[in-house]
């Protein structure tokens, strides 16, 4: 039998359906606007509580301006009974005119950058509706087309080898060849947790902050332990989504920025051959 070392072939596969690509980018825009306008809204009262009301004794996180003994000011972030000096970033940071001003999150993280709760709310609710409509379109497509079952649901075998996948990731070894045509198990679990965990939770806790929705669906208040608890959980969800975003971006860059970004725009993804398997 003739054994020839065929030159490894790069293969372009169609990885992301049009609907997935569109909803991905709409989702990305919505989450960015919602995060930044949400921080603007948070800044109007930069303290979080557990329970129904804003009892100071039940505060769990707070960003305040505190005057020091020498008359100067510091931005102090308190989490539980621990206080941290966060001057320049949280509690006290440079405003538009370059002067220090008391504000929870700094101006480069809020939308609009200047203090304007009314406008922050306008942005937030418009893009919240867009996120909901986009999310429903995605879910409808994903269930009907089999995207969830085919691409997202992990197989029994994959769950069994989750440890291996974890170590491969930790060593920044990414799948090649046929393996790279599918989402790997950690990817699947992360996407499922965001789509069916964090996003529904951020949506429901958002609704719970609405006095109108609380009158229509009083069980929302019981589900989350009161309106202020819901506000705190909403904030934690935003924090978790931001962490997901940072890891997601890191993975995009570590496993080939150009290839990944192209695949989410045109749908085409290049598969690198695995070495030594192209022996016939």
């Amino acid at each position: 039998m003739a054994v020839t070392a065929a030159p490894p072939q790069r293969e372009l596969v169609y990885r992301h359906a049009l609907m997935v690509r569109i909803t991905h980018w709409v989702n990305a825009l919505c989450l960015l606007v919602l995060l930044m306008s949400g921080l603007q809204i948070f800044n109007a009262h930069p303290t979080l509580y557990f329970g129904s009301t804003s009892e100071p004794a039940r505060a769990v996180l707070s960003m305040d301006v505190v005057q020091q003994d020498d008359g100067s000011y510091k931005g102090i972030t308190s989490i539980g009974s621990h206080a941290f000096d966060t001057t320049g970033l949280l509690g006290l940071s440079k405003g538009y005119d370059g002067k220090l001003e008391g504000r929870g999150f700094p101006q480069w993280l809020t939308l609009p950058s200047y203090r304007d709760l009314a406008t922050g709310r306008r942005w937030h609710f418009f893009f919240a509706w867009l996120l909901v409509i986009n999310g429903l379109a995605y879910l409808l497509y994903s269930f009907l087309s089999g995207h969830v079952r085919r691409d997202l649901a992990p197989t029994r075998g994959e769950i069994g080898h989750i440890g291996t996948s974890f170590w491969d990731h930790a060593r920044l070894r990414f799948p090649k060849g046929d393996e790279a045509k599918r989402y790997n198990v950690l990817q699947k679990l992360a996407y499922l947790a965001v789509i069916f965990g964090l996003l529904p939770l951020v949506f429901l806790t958002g609704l719970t902050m609405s006095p109108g929705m609380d009158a229509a669906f009083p069980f929302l208040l019981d589900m989350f332990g009161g309106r202020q608890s819901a506000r705190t959980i909403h904030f934690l969800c935003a924090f978790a989504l931001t962490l997901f975003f940072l890891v997601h971006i890191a993975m995009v860059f570590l496993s080939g920025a150009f290839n990944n970004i192209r695949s989410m725009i045109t749908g085409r993804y290049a598969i690198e051959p695995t070495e030594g398997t192209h022996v016939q």
Partner: protein
Amino acid sequence: MSSDRISRRSFLARGAALGGATFLGGCDQLSRSPSFREVLSKAEWLTKNVQRLVLTERSLAREYSEADLSTHFKANGSTSVADPIYQAMAKNGFSDFALSIDGLVERPTSLKLEELRRLPSRTQITRHDCVEGWSAIGKWTGAQLGPLLQSVGLKPEARYLVFHCADKLGAFSKYYESIDLIDAFHPQTILAYDMNGAPLSVPHGAPIRLRVERQLGYKHAKYVQRIEAVSSFAMIEGGRGGFWEDRGYEWYAGI
């Protein structure tokens, strides 16, 4: 090779910084553009209509128990009224105060505080949600607005009630608010004269504060002096139906 990599990295970093700054600047510009604000405001129409679809007239805001009362209920917005006539009335425990109800009503009426206290009343322990994000629980007693409106008789063209207040915020314009008839006739909508079992204090809007429990705090006008039934609020003050609405906040504050 390594210098290539460094310059590429700094290029990427600079690109990201520039992109970020452009995005932020662009968002600020959009925030100030009246036509873009008009687009963003479409969400309010959607929110109001969807909420009204799931809210029935029997959907009540959650009522709490005495044990849930907030130890400290922040008095927000105006906490006093500069008007000397108001101050004189406050000295007399508002015995000279009269609430007028006029506009598109069959029988324009003026009600003294003690007359208001004799009307059908309701006591409710509810949560006050400020647009800033905080909440406090208080106990409110007041005359139900629905029966009062029935007794003065609304004209068929009346669509909104405008609450004219005694206080000025920011020294410029008087506070005012408006609600539609759905909220006006809701059983929990009251003209509160007692808070936590005592006559309403000046910081909380003495002698009368509107409670419209399924909306945010700024709808709950304090220092109410006059209720005007109108077909449209377009010609009142800034034309958007309230002091904060004229400054960009939603007229429908159920969210």
